[in-house]
């Protein structure tokens, strides 16, 4: 069997089956189990390498042909697939406890398989189409049939769709630039169009306004999943561009532009987060800040780009999952998630509030939590850059810390003589507890990620050399 069938076709088919045929209560278990099995398979069986199991020789071939083009997942993709499906399993197992619509798992599996296809398709440029299809598939996930779609949803759909033509066309232009590198105007045009495409796709200022809107309008768990899945693959896609085109990789102007975009996202995300009175929107801005850090890491000219980016990506999945799950639990009690409604909830939902605070602390880069080691690596990178860059990153993270202080103050603002209660279910407590434990484990022992990320630079032939 070939790798694209195992990690693209099978999860897509399972998702489709879950969507239309299976009992809804079983879907989180089945979807989660499938994602976990796919993750373990990627971890155990190297792609395109014969493996002897007793007398049986197993080999997963790397590619298949589809309409004249190939989808290929190579040996180097194995750890990445394991990480992605592992984190997806985490999200799917948490669905039941979050109370999110049951089609979340089915659509989630289909989205992850499409996103996996985006790293497999050759020419890699066509990934823009698959990313757009994943975004389109996410719409029913975000808008239940009984809810009027808000402006955030429309903007999300618009920006994600507009990104695709820009990227496809810039890819065609870049091929021309490669053959005549001296053509300055063509280079500038291609770079501008590419930049616009990724600005739409990643949600770079000012195109990130849909994120806080979405966090206000849609279910936090579904939105959180999207804020994890889409930027993860978009960043890998962007790294593919940097890896593929020499002038993109070597252009100091482009590198500066990427870094400025990242810094602006970090600083503005932190600043806006500190001004919010809605805990969902705060999560949205925190995700923007985190994406800004990713963009900033991509703009670095050091040999550690890939390592730093993946070091940021893995804890992000866990932080967002814990945060979104906690928000979903609180949303059942305080539907609007505004400060006025969540006041004093620390005494009624101590575990959800603690998990939310821990995830928020982790995103600000608090020591001993999952977000700290990658930020430390990023600070190290920034040490070699002008001081104002470090200042603005510090400013953004400080903004997140201010938002955290305000959130915490509201959560503990209970009326006098209010007793402590435990309103989370056992399942919710266990899931949140495991997530919080994971945040500590990744923070205290970041080396456990080493086996997963050590081979990831091999995904890119030229980056970091």
């Amino acid at each position, binding site marked *: 069997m070939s790798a694209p069938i195992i990690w693209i076709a099978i999860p897509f088919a399972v998702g489709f089956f879950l969507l239309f045929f299976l009992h809804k209560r079983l879907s989180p278990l089945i979807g989660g189990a499938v994602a976990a099995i796919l993750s373990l398979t990627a971890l155990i069986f190297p792609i395109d390498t014969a493996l002897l199991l007793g007398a049986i020789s197993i080999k997963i071939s790397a590619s298949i042909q589809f309409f004249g083009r190939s989808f290929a997942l190579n040996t180097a993709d194995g750890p990445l697939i394991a990480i992605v499906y592992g984190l997806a399993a985490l999200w799917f197992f948490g669905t039941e406890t979050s109370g999110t619509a049951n089609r979340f798992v089915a659509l989630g599996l289909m989205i992850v398989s499409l996103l996996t296809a985006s790293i497999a398709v050759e020419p890699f440029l066509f990934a823009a189409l698959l990313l*757009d299809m994943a975004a*389109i598939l996410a719409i029913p996930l975000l808008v239940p049939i009984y809810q009027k779609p808000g402006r955030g949803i429309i903007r999300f759909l618009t920006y994600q769709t507009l990104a695709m033509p820009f990227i496809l066309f810039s890819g065609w232009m870049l091929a021309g630039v490669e053959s005549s590198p001296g053509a300055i105007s063509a280079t500038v045009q291609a770079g501008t169009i590419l930049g616009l495409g990724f600005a739409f796709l990643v949600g770079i200022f000012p195109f990130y306004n849909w994120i806080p809107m979405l966090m206000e309008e849609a279910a936090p768990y579904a939105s959180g999943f999207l804020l994890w899945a889409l930027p993860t693959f978009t960043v890998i896609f962007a790294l593919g561009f940097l890896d593929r085109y020499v002038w993109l990789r070597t252009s100091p102007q482009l590198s500066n532009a990427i870094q400025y975009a990242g810094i602006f996202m970090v600083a503005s995300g932190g600043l806006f987060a500190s001004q919010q009175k809605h805990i969902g929107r705060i999560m949205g801005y925190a995700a923007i800040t985190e994406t800004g850090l990713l963009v900033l890491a991509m703009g670095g000219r050091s040999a550690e780009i890939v390592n730093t980016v993946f070091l940021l990506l893995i804890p992000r999945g866990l932080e967002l999952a814990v945060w979104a799950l906690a928000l979903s639990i609180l949303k059942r009690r305080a539907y609007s998630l505004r400060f006025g409604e969540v006041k004093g909830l620390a005494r009624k939902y101590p575990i959800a509030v603690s998990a939310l605070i821990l995830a928020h602390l982790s995103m600000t880069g608090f020591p001993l939590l999952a977000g700290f080691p990658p930020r430390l690596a990023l600070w190290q990178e920034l040490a070699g850059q002008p001081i104002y860059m470090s200042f603005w990153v510090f400013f953004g993270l400080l903004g997140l810390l201010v938002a955290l202080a305000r959130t915490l103050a509201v959560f503990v603002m209970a009326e006098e003589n209010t007793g402590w209660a435990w309103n989370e279910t056992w399942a919710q407590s266990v899931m949140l507890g495991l997530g919080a434990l994971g945040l500590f484990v990744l923070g205290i022992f970041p080396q456990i990620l080493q086996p997963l990320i050590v081979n990831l630079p091999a995904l890119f032939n030229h980056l970091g050399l």
Partner: protein
Amino acid sequence: MILDIISWAAVGIILATSTAIFINRDWRISLGALTVQYIAAFWLVTRHMPFVMGSVKLITGWMIVAALGITRLGLPAAEDQQGNAFLPRGQWFRLMLILLVALVTVGVTPRIESAIPGLGWQVIAGSLLLIGTGLIHLGMTSDTLNAILGLLTTLTGFEILYAAVESSILVTGLLAVTNLGLGIVGSYLLLAGSAAAEAEEER
């Protein structure tokens, strides 16, 4: 020569239909114009692509119109488009915007033709008109149906141009799926809005 004349006619149709979609508030006229627009786009696409692959775009487009039309037909009349109250909504203002797009198209088309020779003036003009009107449409509305129409118009414009430089079957297929997905999601969002309104009325 005849082909060129037909192509210019297609550009004219594109200008007329995109203006109709942008100016009109009646969804029936908008969807009717979109149907005709897909025929003109099909013609321009087939200037650089085989007839069969071009017809994929036409059929997909018509399927989208059918999906949106059937969905919209089942919704109450009160669901009519609500534009963004912040922006001017008069027809003359919109007509001026279309004129602006047309002027930009006239100015930019020769430059693109000289930068990428062989595309053909008609293909570039048709494509730019659609992209331009689609984008201003998107910028002026927060209504679901109009936003979807704006996106479809922009994508059609891009597809005309992209067909001239990339004729892969996979890309054609994926673009068709993306367009169809947009149409289906548009129908879903229209239904979702209407279900919410019905629930509110029942209360």
